[in-house]
Structure formats: structure tokens, C-alpha cells
């Protein structure tokens, strides 16, 4: 039985585990119908031209783990941003771990989607926001919607701000030979609210894991949201991450994606602007080795005048890795005075590495400033020589240049502890110890 059939047939099993009278269940039923019709995306589709999920479909993924691995905090401490205090929503093999988590209802709601779905007092919020921005045409999103049950639920009311950043961490323990999880996050920042989120997927053994996540973010008027995605997983862990962001007037949302690990990683990042004076920021650093594959697929849809978007993606590709960047900016007819910028720079450091880039502009308004730039090149020989003539080793010199190369993206990270952590991850990935933190 192939994975698609397995998923479709296990929907009935899934129905036994959820409240099928809840209005959300109609959305699920519709979504599984859509998925059944279209199946997994293939390379024939333009949006998936450079990324194939075929290799994943041959695994016999278990969808509902029978037992959940037990974790001690000390074993997984290093995967948290433990230097600072944070709220934590932790899932182990797709199941919420109250032991590792730290949630709150004190003025703001940092809790679980399953709780929000079951409690009456959240019903109006669920009705208003759930599945309202996720694309109904995307097969992987539909698959997630069909099995949506658990994930983070964060609601920040008007003018509020949580006391500390929120970490969402997914562990997989490898109790199952192969595991597929589908977390669903709903994040709402009401008027003038502010929050910071750090998300991480981490498998603790070498067993294959396939994560198909959907995150919906709603930034109401004047809201500010910073979202950081850390992707540094094992070689057998694959991730399809769909993030949909709906922004209202004057809001500011930034998403930083740090991709250093994993097998196949596909990031679908979609911004929809529903008001004026909106600022959208999308940034990413990708450093790959082995046979890793990372695909950044972004969309910024400018639907109103006077908005801005900034994209900056840096990639360094070694060994037999493949990097894909597909950035799309759409500027509607009425979205005059739009400033949309897109930048994608890549360095190839191995002969077997591949880069496929497709920066795309679709512009229907005339009074706009839109540009994109895309480069593929090498590290500057002269700069390397300069450093080496001053006694800096080749590896270190290369690393320094790569740091400098990706620094634009680091600059806008607003959590100092996270910045330090990312810097260390980069050093680890490049295999250097500079003896100091940048």
C-alpha cells in the first residue's frame, strides 16, 4: 500500500480519535477529499519542479505512534534555548509533553490546539481563524488540515505581549521504525500585540521521520510577530513546512529560517497583505552538506497600497547537496507605491552541489519599486589569500568569509541568545572553532 492510500484509509481511524461533531471536522473531511483527488505533489507541477517527495513515499510511516518515548529534560536540554527563560510547547512523537512544557493562560494564551478545539470559550476564535489563510489548493496543506488535531495555539490579546519568547519544539524519539507527524499551529496576534516564537523539529535517533507542518499566523492591526525556524535535524528527517501569514494594516511580521540539516526540507512561506503600511520580512541562511536538499518556496502577495516586503536568502552548498530558491512576488493592480525587494545569494563550495533558483516577479501596478537579485559564485580568492597570508588557516578563512556572507540575515535577529546559538550552529556546520563568538 502506498503512502497516499495509507493516509486516506487511516482517516477513518483518525475520526475515532477526534470529536466529529465539531465544526472543524467538516473542514477536515473536505481536505481529505481534496488530498485524495490530487495526491502528493509530483515534479510535473511547476511549484515542485526541483523537489521530489518520491523517496519519502516508499517508507512505511506509522501515523499514530503506539507508545511515546520518555524524555528527561537533561537529555534534550541542549535543543532548547536554555540560556534564557522561555515558554515552551513541547511535543514528543507528535504528542504533547506536559512534563517538558511550560504554557500559560496569564493574560495571553500559550497552549495547545487540541485544548482550543475542545473548549467552548475558544470556539469563536477557532471559527474566525482556523484554516482561514491556508491555501485550499495545496495538497500537502490539505493533508495536514485533514489530520489537524494537535499543535501550538497562541493567542495574544489586544496590546499584550508575553513576558518571554515562546519555543515550539517537536521531538521524535524513534520508538517507531518510521514516523510521520503533522503538527498544526495557530498563532494570533491581536491589535498592537507582540510576540516572538522559535520553532524547532528534532529527531533523536536515526529512524526516518516525515513532518508535514502547517502554521497559520494572523497579525492584526499594528501587531508585531517575529518567527524563527531552526532546522538542524538528522539526515533521515524530512520536513515540509507550510507557513501562511495574514497581515492587517500597519503590522510587521518577520520569518527567519535557518536550514542546516535534514534530508529533504521544503519551506513554503506565504504572506498575504490585507491592509496598508504592512512590512513583511523573509530571511534565511542555508548551509548544506551531504545529500541534503532544501527548497525555499516563498510568496508575497501585495494586495494593498503602500506596503513593503524584504527578502534575503543566503545559501552555502557543499558535497552533493541541492539548494532551491523559488521566490514569488505578486503586486496587484491597486497595490501602488509598493516596495518589494528580493535578494538571493549562493555559494557553491563543491563540484557535486547544485543550485536551482527561480526568482519571480508578477507585477500589475505601475507605481512600484520592485527588484530582485540572484547570484551564484565563489568565495573571493583575494580575500582568502589576504587572510591566509596573515596566518589564518584555510578553513577558518573560508568560515570567516561565510559568516560575513550571511551576516545580513543575522543582523535582524532580535533575540541575542538565539543569535549566539545560530552562530555556534554555523561554526559547527562549517567544522571550525574560531575561538571566539561572532
Amino acid at each position: 500500500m502506498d503512502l497516499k492510500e495509507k493516509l486516506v484509509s487511516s482517516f477513518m481511524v483518525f475520526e475515532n480519535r477526534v470529536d466529529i461533531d465539531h465544526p472543524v471536522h467538516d473542514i477536515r473531511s473536505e481536505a481529505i477529499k481534496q488530498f485524495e483527488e490530487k495526491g502528493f505533489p509530483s515534479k510535473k507541477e511547476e511549484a515542485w519542479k526541483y523537489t521530489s517527495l518520491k523517496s519519502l513515499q516508499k517508507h512505511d510511516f506509522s501515523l499514530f505512534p503506539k507508545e511515546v518515548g520518555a524524555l528527561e529534560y537533561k537529555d534534550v536540554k541542549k535543543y532548547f534555548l536554555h540560556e534564557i527563560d522561555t515558554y515552551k510547547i513541547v511535543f514528543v512523537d507528535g504528542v504533547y509533553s506536559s512534563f517538558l512544557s511550560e504554557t500559560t493562560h496569564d493574560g495571553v494564551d500559550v497552549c495547545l490546539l487540541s485544548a482550543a478545539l475542545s473548549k467552548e470559550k475558544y470556539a469563536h476564535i477557532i471559527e474566525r481563524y482556523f484554516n482561514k489563510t491556508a491555501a485550499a489548493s495545496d495538497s500537502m496543506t490539505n493533508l495536514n488540515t485533514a489530520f489537524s488535531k494537535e499543535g501550538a495555539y497562541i493567542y495574544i490579546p489586544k496590546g499584550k505581549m508575553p513576558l518571554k519568547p515562546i519555543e515550539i519544539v517537536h521531538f521524535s524519539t524513534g520508538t517507531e521504525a518510521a514516523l510521520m507527524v503533522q503538527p498544526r499551529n495557530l498563532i494570533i496576534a491581536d491589535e498592537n500585540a507582540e510576540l516572538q516564537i522559535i520553532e524547532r523539529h528534532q529527531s533523536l535517533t536515526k529512524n526516518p521521520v516525515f513532518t508535514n507542518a502547517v502554521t497559520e499566523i494572523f497579525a492584526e492591526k499594528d501587531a508585531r510577530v517575529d518567527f524563527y525556524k531552526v532546522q538542524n535535524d538528522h539526515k533521515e528527517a524530512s520536513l515540509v513546512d507550510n507557513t501562511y501569514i495574514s497581515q492587517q494594516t500597519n503590522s510587521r511580521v518577520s520569518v527567519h529560517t535557518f536550514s542546516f540539516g535534514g534530508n529533504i526540507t521544503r519551506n513554503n512561506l506565504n504572506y498575504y497583505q490585507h491592509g496598508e503600511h504592512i512590512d513583511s520580512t523573509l530571511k534565511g541562511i542555508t548551509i548544506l552538506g551531504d545529500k541534503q536538499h532544501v527548497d525555499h518556496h516563498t510568496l508575497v502577495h501585495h494586495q494593498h497600497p503602500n506596503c513593503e516586503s524584504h527578502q534575503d536568502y543566503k545559501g552555502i552548498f557543499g558535497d552533493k547537496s541541492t539548494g532551491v530558491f523559488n521566490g514569488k512576488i505578486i503586486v496587484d493592480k491597486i497595490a501602488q507605491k509598493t516596495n518589494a525587494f528580493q535578494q538571493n545569494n549562493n555559494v557553491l563550495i563543491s563540484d557535486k552541489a547544485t543550485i536551482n533558483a527561480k526568482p519571480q516577479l508578477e507585477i500589475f501596478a505601475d507605481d512600484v519599486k520592485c527588484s530582485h537579485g540572484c547570484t551564484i559564485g565563489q568565495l573571493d580568492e583575494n580575500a582568502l589569500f589576504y587572510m591566509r597570508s596573515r596566518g589564518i588557516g584555510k578553513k577558518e578563512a573560508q568560515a570567516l568569509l561565510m559568516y560575513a556572507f550571511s551576516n545580513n540575515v543575522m543582523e535582524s535577529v532580535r533575540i541575542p541568545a538565539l543569535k549566539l546559538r545560530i552562530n555556534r550552529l554555523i561554526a559547527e556546520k562549517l567544522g571550525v572553532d574560531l575561538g571566539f563568538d561572532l
Partner: protein
Amino acid sequence: MAYTEEELKKELETKEYEYGFYTDIESDTFPKGLNEEVVIALSKKKEEPEWMTEWRLEAFRIWKSMEEPDWANVHYEKPDFQDISYYSAPNKKPKYNSLDEVDPELLDTFKRLGISLDEQKKLAGVAVDIVMDSVSVATTFKKTLAEKGIIFCSISEAIKEHPELVRKHLGTVVPQQDNFYAALNSAVFSDGSFCYIPKGVRCPMELSTYFRINQAGTGQFERTLVVADEGSYVSYLEGCTAPSRDENQLHAAVVELKAMDDAEIKYSTVQNWYPGDKEGKGGVFNFVTKRGLCETNAKISWTQVETGSAVTWKYPSCVLKGNNSVGEFYSIAVTNNYQQADTGTKMIHLGKNTKSTIISKGISAGKSQNSYRGLVQIQPRAENARNFSQCDSLLMGNSCGAHTFPYIEAKNKSAQIEHEATTSKIGEDQIFYCNQRGIDTEKAIALIVNGFSKEVLNKLPMEFAVEAQKLLEISLEGSVG
């Protein structure tokens, strides 16, 4: 009295297609429809050898198994291929020795188009191979070229007189199965130009072909093959205008360029076919496959000015096979009213130290859609490949669209690729500056557009550059407020 925006707009909208007239020459036309018999009949009519007939039939069989592609960012009513006549030739076809023998009506057509044969003969030093509804009727300067050993004739003539050359090169750059329209063209191409430059010869003049679509309901299937042998140089010009017609006309040409070691080919196009009226009715469908192959140290340079056609769908490409070969692409695409253009280039780097440059300027006005679609591909063995791409779009009014779809694929670490794209409009301050100095708005726009496209215009041969500048002005007059 000041010339207001409204007046400008009105004038532009009512401006009829300047070159819209129809020459009445009796034609020998095939009945509509396409099947194996038609292909065989066409081949027979042209007195082609058997291998050519077989080649056409093979292409036809491939074509039948293919589906019409629809991935381009253009929308149009698909042509009915059974409703097209696949052969139409002016019926009086004497072999002319001088211009005096040419049908005076035909000569008049060219005069109205501004191509006076004798004038060009004397002044510009251009040899013109005129294709009027698919069959060449006049070739000038043949003698001068023949002295150098250059072959410049219609492709049907070449099939008869130089079968070994045609057989060796035809379909080697654009094979029959390449794509839907290339297969169709291979099966039914009526005529076109053939050009062969022998080893080490520098062609002393610009070779030029003027195409005209003339007969109602006849698709034009041109086939051009240019072969530049080792160390030779040729500059080839292609320019076109078509009479206005309500029915959509299909044009599916194939152009193959082959630059052998150390050779250089410069291919320039000015395309000004009927774009349809201001409601978007009528107009030419232009689905062209153009590709060049570069051997070691060779260079191919494409320059195009696209102002006409209702739907343009073409990607002049370079396959940089040999080491140190160079590919260039310079393009201006202007769309107005309901025109749609999806154009760009492909640069396939196979050899070491290969270089490519892409400069594309898109100007959209009215309700038109203008897309740049390009591919830069660096294959694993292409050490030290270098590419620079720049695509700029200029938007006039908020009912039009500008799109870019660049694909960049690098499989070699020594590759250096730069790509940049911008979209902007003509600044009010720029127009104000010109107005203030006594330049009216219309002139100011022409000035700014010319400046915007200068990088490409500069690459055109002299005679073409002047024509192209005029075309830009005509196409865009009054489209900005």
C-alpha cells in the same frame, strides 16, 4: 494650444496599423487541413528529394503524438490546425535576373513598406532575400556573395542545389521532436532562408530577409538555417511587418544557427507584425523556436526588438557547447493594448570558460502582459562559466502587467552567475523635467523609453537601429499619463 493627455490617448487609439494593407496577387493555395497527403503534396510541389519528404513525414508523425503546450503566461484561442492552408505561393514565379522583371504590384508593396530594393542595393549594401508568402521571389547581391563562396538562398533552393549541406545541418540544433511547434514546422515548412559562410570568410555585408504574411488564412512556417563554418563571420537581419487582418494568423518559425570553431553569428530581428486592434481583436500569433549552437571559441549574439504580434512566444537560445564560446541575448519587447508577450532566452553552458550575457528590456502599456522567461543552466563540466543577466521592466498605466520567470540552475562550483531584475515606471519628475525645457510629453516619453532601451538598441546594426527607434515611438505614443 497644449497637447493634452486625452488627445494623445485618442490619437493613439485611433491610430490604425500603419503598414496594414493587402497586396492582391493571385496565389496558388492548398485547401485547408493537414494530413500525410498534404505533407507529401507539399514536398512534391517543391520538387524535393525523397529524404526530405521522409524527414517531413517523420516530423509530422512526431507532431501528431504531441500536445500543444500551455505553460506560457499567455492566453489565446488555440488555433485549429485543420483550418489552415499549408501552402500558398505567388503563382507567377519566373526566375528573375533583375528587379525590372519582378511583378510591379509586389515592388509597390515593398515601396510602401519602405524597403526599396534598388535603393537598398545601392545605399545600404544589403542583400535582400524577400520572402513573400513563403516563397522567395527575389534575391539580390547573389553574385557578390557567390564570389566569396557564400551561399545565401531560399531553403527550398538549397535543398535542391546543396542537398549535402542541408542534410548535414538541418534539424541538428532544433530536432523535429524538440517541441510542438518545431515539429509542426519541420513537417510543413514552406520556405525560408539558407545561409552558408565558408571557412575563414567574413561576410562583407549584412544579410537580410524581410518576411511578410500576405495571404489570408495561411500560416507562415519559415525555416531558417545559418551555418558559419570555421573562423567565419556573418551578421543576419530579419525584419517583418504584416497587413492587418481580423482573423488570427499563426506563425511558427524555426531558426537554427550553427557557429563552428572560431565563427561568429550576429542575428538581429525586428518584429512588427499586426498586433490586433485596440480591442485585442485579430493579430498574429508568433510561436517561434530559435536556437544557436556554438562550437569552440564561437560566438552567437541574438538581438531582438519585438513590438508586434498579438501573442509572442519565443526564446532565442544558445547552446554553448565548445570551450570559450560566448552567447549573447539583447531584447526589447514592447506590448500595448491587449498584446501578450512571453519571451526570453536559454543559455546552456556545456563547455569550459563559456560566457553569456542577457539584457532584456520589457515595456508594457495599455492592457498588455509582458513576461520575461529565461533559463541559465551551468552543466557539471562547464568550468568557469560566467553569466550576467539583467531584466528591466517599465510599466505604463496600471492595467498592464510585467512578469519575470528566470530559472537559474548551477551544477558547477566555479560558476559565476549574476541576475538582477527591476520594475519601475516613468517618473513624473522625469517628464516634468523635460516639459520644463520645452519638450512635450509625447517626445519626453519617447526620449525616456529610448534611454531605457539604449543598451539593446546599440547592439542593432545601423539601419535597423533607426527603424527600431521609430517603432518604439509608434508603439508607445500617448500610453502614459
